[in-house]
């Protein structure tokens, strides 16, 4: 090739780089063979102790669910995972159809007509939802539950900078941990862009006053944060007045992956779609009249609209969306509902068992729970957590620092991956602490 270019060596191709900015090679170690690198990394990975070697009762947005092997087989098709964004529709019908089916799945679960193909995670989906509310009504404040995950709130804060938006906290009802309705009614003003609440709430119980919340929000948009697996057995937010539904899509066929890659779910009403962020796939025809799919409404996006785009997102979490729809397809609607129901049963069993352990109260908040609940203890939770680890169990997520008013408390999650033995191991470990 050099001969073809009439060059003695490759150096000449770099003549445009001024001498002053040149570096002499890279200050990292030399390369190693594949076998060596695989050996090295697997040795490092063995230093971890995750849900694969001991039961984990951590949740807080991500949950250790069982993922059928077929889901991984599907996402391991290299025609999918080594492709990029389907800019060229004719060559990309496969992923386009899969994403249309993903959008359809999310639409069915949320009760809204439109879903995009993904945001980065549940927290950035919320940030984007707040910005979309502002685009729709020009208002500047978003009302959120004080009882939301602190990291999700931090991400939301980052997303609001540019629009000059503010967050206002709504306290929780002491008994249920859900939005305090009278505080919400007082909080809504003509500058409220949106009211956000989570269902189930961060502390575990489902929200059963959705009509009251919708009424309190008035002309503000209603953004609901949902667990998509819970939606298999609970009412669709679109049916109780949600304008936008966001959520962490990981429970649908994706692994927790030490926090990423995840799947940001974003759904909205059809009449708002032109203000929505992210890629959206539409159904159309090809020149011969056959059904075909393509990216659509692209004038919302960065590569066309530039600084007036609805969002800067380009690369998203497409493969996780494929995993989600593959998971729902492998389980089927009935299977998805069975798994969701099983989560409700598992949580009830574990709550009752923990509540029987002296010095522990579970659930701390009243209401119907999905797969997560708050446990309060009379002892320092940090100490409890360390002791649980020694006994081969990952305990719940400590809430003590973020919500000191809850005392020594932690959020415990349980799913269909936990056998009775797994749950009993946790309970026995807690009992051992009281002795």
């Amino acid at each position, binding site marked *: *090739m050099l001969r073809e270019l009439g060059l003695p060596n490759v150096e000449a191709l770099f003549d445009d780089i001024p001498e002053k900015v040149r570096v002499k090679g890279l200050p990292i170690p030399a390369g*190693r063979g594949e076998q060596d690198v695989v050996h090295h990394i697997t040795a490092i990975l063995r230093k971890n102790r995750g849900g694969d070697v001991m039961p984990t009762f951590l949740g807080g947005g991500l949950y250790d669910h069982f993922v059928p092997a077929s889901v991984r087989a599907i996402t391991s098709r290299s025609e999918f995972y*080594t492709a990029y964004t389907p800019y060229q529709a004719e060559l990309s019908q496969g992923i386009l159809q899969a994403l249309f089916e993903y959008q359809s799945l999310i639409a069915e679960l949320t009760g809204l007509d439109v879903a995009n193909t993904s945001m980065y995670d549940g927290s950035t989906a919320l940030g984007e939802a707040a910005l979309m509310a502002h685009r729709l009504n020009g208002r500047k404040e978003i009302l959120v539950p004080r009882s939301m995950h602190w990291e999700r709130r931090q991400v939301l804060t980052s997303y609001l900078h540019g629009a000059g938006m503010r967050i206002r906290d709504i306290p929780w009802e002491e008994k249920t941990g859900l939005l305090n309705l009278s505080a919400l009614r007082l909080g809504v003003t003509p500058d409220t862009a949106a009211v956000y609440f989570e269902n189930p709430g961060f502390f575990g119980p489902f929200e059963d006053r959705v009509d009251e919340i919708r009424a309190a929000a008035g002309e503000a948009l209603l953004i609901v944060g949902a667990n998509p697996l819970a939606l298999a057995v609970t009412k669709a937010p679109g049916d109780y007045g949600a304008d936008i539904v966001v959520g962490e899509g990981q429970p649908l066929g994706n692994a927790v992956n030490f926090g990423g890659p995840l799947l940001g779910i974003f759904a909205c009403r059809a009449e708002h779609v032109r203000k929505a962020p992210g890629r959206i796939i539409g159904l159309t025809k090809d020149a011969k009249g056959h059904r075909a799919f393509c990216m659509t409404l692209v004038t919302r996006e*960065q590569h066309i609209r530039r600084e007036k785009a609805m969002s800067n997102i380009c690369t998203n979490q497409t493969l996780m969306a494929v995993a989600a729809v593959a998971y729902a397809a492998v389980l089927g609607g009935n299977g998805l509902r069975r798994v969701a129901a099983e989560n409700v049963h598992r949580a009830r069993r574990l709550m009752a068992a923990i509540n029987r352990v002296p010095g522990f109260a579970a659930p701390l908040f009243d209401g119907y729970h999905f797969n997560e609940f708050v446990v309060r203890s009379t002892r320092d939770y940090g100490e409890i957590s360390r002791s649980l680890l020694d006994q081969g169990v990952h305990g719940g997520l400590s809430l003590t620092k973020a919500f000191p008013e809850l005392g020594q408390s932690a959020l415990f999650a349980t799913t269909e991956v936990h056998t009775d033995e797994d749950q009993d191991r946790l309970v026995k470990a807690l009992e051992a602490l009281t002795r």
Partner: protein
Amino acid sequence: MKFRQAYYAEPLLFEKAGAPNGGVPDCPLPPRLRRELLDLPNLPEPEVVRHFTRLSQMNFGIDSGFYPLGSCTMKFNPKFTEEIARLPEVARTHPHQEESTVQGHLQVLYELQEMLRLIAGMDAVTLQPAAGAQGEFTGLLLAKAYLEARGEHRTQVVLPDTAHGTNFATAGMLGFEVVEVPSRDGRVDGDALRHAVGPQTLAFMITNPNTLGLFERDILGIATTVHQAGALLYYDGANFNAILGRTSPGAMGFDIVHFNLHKTFTTPHGGGGPGAGPVAVKRHLEPYLPVPVVAKVEGTYRLDYDRPKSIGKVRAWYGNYGLLLRAYGYILAQGADGLAAVTDRAVLNANYLKTKVERLLPVPFDGPRMHEFVASGSPLQARGLRTMDLAKRLMDFGHHPPTVYFPHLVEEAIMIEPTETEAKETMDGFAADLEAILGEPDHVLKNAPHHAAVARVDEVQAAREPILSWRMKRRKPETS
């Protein structure tokens, strides 16, 4: 016929006949919470696997063929990193686990931070951003926090006209006014830049080499101009694969850099994502990095949240770990020598293919390119054809089309990036096919593709009457 993509008249999952809905399962929730109907299909598992296998065969990845999508760096994704990232040790580790139980993962993150920092010639790294655009978002937040701490409230972001769309969108999303600087001969016009920057300028964002594949020779002059205005210089790392071991953002005077690990460090693009967009900064910006930063204290890895000046978080937890791990494996395997060879070969391949293409189509601007080049399909216009027709016809020969209509500076742009993992024979074949296509009758191009799964897709119709889900489709039956 050189290529024929599979086609199945594959119904939507929702249109397939399956088992009936089983009604409400045994679930102890009261009627006011409970959903009565979930309208999702119930299909046998083998049928589901076949469905998605057929769909995959109607899709084109790097493993399927040449994918010279300019700016996107579509190169071979190593299989060993894929295997590692799918291990249960990775998949089933929860990010809220106690630090003592994730020392291995934290070691990976810490060492990756270090290696990226050294490769970029910078001082500190955050791995949190989920993609390049989120890296830009993080970078501008860092610049804003840093300057505001000095009492400066700057309102403008300056961009060259060759910049990626995400640069504009990120600035807009953060409420900054965008000032566009025109190019002269394909590079930043220094005089125009001097006029554009001032006390209102937060940052100048630039990729080097730029999207035309040209190295900004006056990068030091640009850095001086920007810094003299008190603004920060931002490196869009989309084209980092062109400079490994030759120069670095640190050496060029940049304050902030984002990496696209799915480009230069070849984590798979996933059909559109996930990616990873770590950000590196110089010392003065380090206190503002998102929390947590991974630290090493007396041989133990820790998540450091105690950073009072931090901008906070841009996404949950620590980043797209599965992708960070793949990039870590790739960098270890390549090493200093391998990464330098990546750049040499990527640049050689681009220049080799350019000499072949420029015999067929104009390639504006003189001199060697770095990792990519931009040709123009404008001669086709005399035949009533456009670049898009040529792009679609390339599919029939088994090539994914290059990026088209970007950068805007070049009329009817065709942006070609072969990458270092392509063989000479592949590029020769592409050039030969391009030549053959240019000699074909107009209607062959106009009606292309002929051998992709479907014929030309009607994107106008899709946008005019959007059908975006099965829910919408059910209400609006197809007419034919």
